[in-house]
């Protein structure tokens, strides 16, 4: 039966909110195009935060600029929508200022691998205890469809009308070689898998990098579409050992089949722990010992 009046989502929001199904969602409705892969990130992060029982007021989502970076506005957590390319250093500042917060950096491929590319190795090597969700649509969505550093060679866009001749970057291989202590890949078309990976990334003590393949349905009709990705993606082998860096690199180097899952994870001193250790050293040798054991204790359950 067709209702007499059309039903608008806007009118239903309060009702839905009361049902409790919009936990962690802000009153603002997402401004993404219908069908955009980015809807999966709201779903994924909300579910992961719910599962881990992390409070909205203890969470800070820091983003750059781009469609993906609009994310903090749609969440009922603290947020900082910063500058194009600067999500990671701002997130580092937030985390250094208050280690108790759960800090999530979010951005697109242009944000992370073009303008902000200089910050990634340093966040990784310092092992800042934050989670970086990079939504890769292989295109500049917000500025209406220009070529990006992860676009395929041959891709035609308004700024590459005669085909893109540059080779795309391999983000996973880069992150592995930068020393990121947790590296994984997910796909917006597999939301449950995405949620599980976001959850693991949040739980990881250290810098966790999750690469999310995400279609831009408005500006990319040919390359990274749901149809193409659905056919191409596969999961990492069941026996993949996530402590084996060489195996992780081999999987990342295979660019023909986008492979999803947790590539690599290791536990090592985080920036926060390093700064605590420095403080203990500065306070005198006596306290170095105690601080080290405290870190060791803290490390075990994680």
């Amino acid at each position, binding site marked *: 039966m067709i209702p007499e009046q059309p039903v608008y989502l806007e009118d239903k929001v309060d009702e839905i909110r009361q049902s409790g199904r919009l936990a962690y969602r802000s009153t603002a409705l997402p401004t993404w195009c219908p069908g955009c892969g980015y809807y999966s990130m709201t779903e994924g992060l909300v579910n992961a935060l719910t599962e881990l029982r992390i409070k909205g007021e203890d969470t800070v989502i*820091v983003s750059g600029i781009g469609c993906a970076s609009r994310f903090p506005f749609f969440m009922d957590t*603290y947020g900082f929508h910063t500058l194009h390319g600067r999500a990671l250093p701002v997130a580092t500042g937030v985390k250094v200022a*208050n280690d108790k917060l759960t800090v999530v950096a979010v951005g697109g491929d242009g944000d992370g691998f073009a303008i902000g590319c200089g*910050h990634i190795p340093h966040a990784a090597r310092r092992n800042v205890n934050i989670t970086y969700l990079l939504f890769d649509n292989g295109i500049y969505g917000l500025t209406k469809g220009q070529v990006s550093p992860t676009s395929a060679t041959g891709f035609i866009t308004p700024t590459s009308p005669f085909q893109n001749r540059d080779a795309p970057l391999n983000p996973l291989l880069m992150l592995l070689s930068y020393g990121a202590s947790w590296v994984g890949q997910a796909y917006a078309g597999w939301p449950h898998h995405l949620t599980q990976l976001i959850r693991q990334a949040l739980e990881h003590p250290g810098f966790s990098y999750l690469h999310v393949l995400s279609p831009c349905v408005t500006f990319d009709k040919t390359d990274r579409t749901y149809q193409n990705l659905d056919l191409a993606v596969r999961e990492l082998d069941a026996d993949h050992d996530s402590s084996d860096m060489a195996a992780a690199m081999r999987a990342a180097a295979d660019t023909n089949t986008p492979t999803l899952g947790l590539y690599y994870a290791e536990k090592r001193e985080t920036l926060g722990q390093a700064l605590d250790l420095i403080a203990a050293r500065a306070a005198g040798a006596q306290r170095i010992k105690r601080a080290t054991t405290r870190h060791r204790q803290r490390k075990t359950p994680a």
Partner: protein
Amino acid sequence: MAKQTDIQISICGSAGDGTIAVGDIFKRAMARAGYRVIAFDHYPAEIRGFGKCISRTRISTNQVYSMKSYSDVLVSLNDLHAIPHVGEVRDYGAIIYDSAPMSAVAEGAHISGHLMPGHLPYALPIRELSELATGANRSRNIVALGFIAGLYQLPQQAFHQAIAAKFETKAPAVADTALAAFDSGFKSGSSTYKFDDVQIDHSRARKNGGEVRMMTGNGAIAHGCLEAGIETFFGYPITPATGIMERLAVEMPRRGGRLVQTEDEIAAISATIGAGYAGARAATATSGPGLALMAEMLGLGVMAEVPAVVFVSQRGGPSTGMPTKTEQSDLNLAVWGGHGDARRIVLAPTNVEGCRRCAARAFEMAEKFQVPVIVLIDLYLSNRYETVFLQGEDNFLPKNWQRVDSGAPGDNYRRYELTADGLSPRCVPGEAGGIYTATGLEHDEYGHPNDSPDVHSLMSEKRHEKLRDAMKYPGINFTKRFGDKGKIDVGLLAWGSTFGEALEAVLLAREEGIRCAAMKVVMMSPLPARPILRFCNDCQQVLVPELNYTGQFANLVSGELGRPVTRVSHATGAPMDINYLLTAIRNAAKQKLRNKTTTSNPTKA
């Protein structure tokens, strides 16, 4: 009757002679002995080699604000380097040199051949004394120091303490050798007949009372940061600001502070803004090139109303320019740099004590006005030493902002509420009831993106008007007038390190009978236009001396006041030349007789 003591001693040598080290002992000993000290060293630009080093120290019984334009005493540890500086010694001043230098010298290469008629020479077997006292010629610098102390009957005790402190961390034999060298120089100086007219009257020196510290501008900034309870610092090394970070790297962790060397200045300011957003007292330090990189993020700080402190020490520019020379050419960038209408607070202290006070107050102001605060100094102020008296400890305020738990559920917190004074309540992550998203997009009171015409004009007004009260913030003199009161012929409007030279020139001009005064301006943005205008209205002629080519402060003042001023620009890489300023004052005083209206200097338009 003995006069006030006010003398300047220059020690000149080659890198490796221990010139700077011995100058350091001298200034610390004199500070211990109760003098006010101001000192500025000259280093070679290269790290290695035999470049020229000069340690200049002015000691006085009264507060002084700059180096003198001449020296009373010159000590040569290397004649080749010292000869060009013979001319800076005044008539009846002393020149102390080695009568028998290390190696045979060509004709004209010995300093004795370059003295001028008024100079009084003390030829001393410096190397020989060093060898006799210590068995080596390495202590020539300390022998010369001892000679000065003996000649002018300075308190031997203070020097012994300063030498012991200097070599505290070395093997005891090092200090013993130095003391032996000093004493041999001292003995020689005491038994030499003093025939120059350099007077140091020790009875006038300040007796105990309060703690005296020798600090550079950079050291004072670090000190101020620590007093203000700095919690996080992010920085990228750059001359001449690096000293601030190096000092904080040692001191902050002891107090639980956290310091990270970032990958570049963009990351440094980004992390500082992130930490400020999260509620920490956060700062970074850089020089002009770094500030240029930070400009975009400062705009975000203004837009999202995030407190942060940025210390900027200027050097010669543009581009890599002259990294080891001083200049005041980043004022435009500090005040206006970046995109959009992004008013921020800019403080420019004029001396080392001011560096400490502005640094500490900058954190309070950043928090109170929810805006980035730039503290702008230059290489001259960064590196020069001054005695700082800590007895009247200022009461710097601990972290304090209006925490408001709105009780509103979810993201209904009005973080950018429009209030009468433009200042909104502020929450930081971790506090329930204050959830909001800070953004660089134009936004409404909730922080929600909104580009409607009303919102943009109201919010622009809020961001500008809230800074109006910054000019009334207690604890710093944002402007202050010195010299003649009432109507005067020539007024100097000066900022930053140049103020010291401006005041010195005014004091000299007044001795010549010119009615003049100097005003220091410490707040560059927002500019306290009213007191400046009042001062200008008292002056027949307003001169604005500064260390840059285009007259950046003059442009700022004449733009805001709508009143012409005369630029006295001096862009050589050196501090302002007092004689150059004095001549400008004399000319202005003369010109006033011919022409009643002021004009700007046509050659420097």
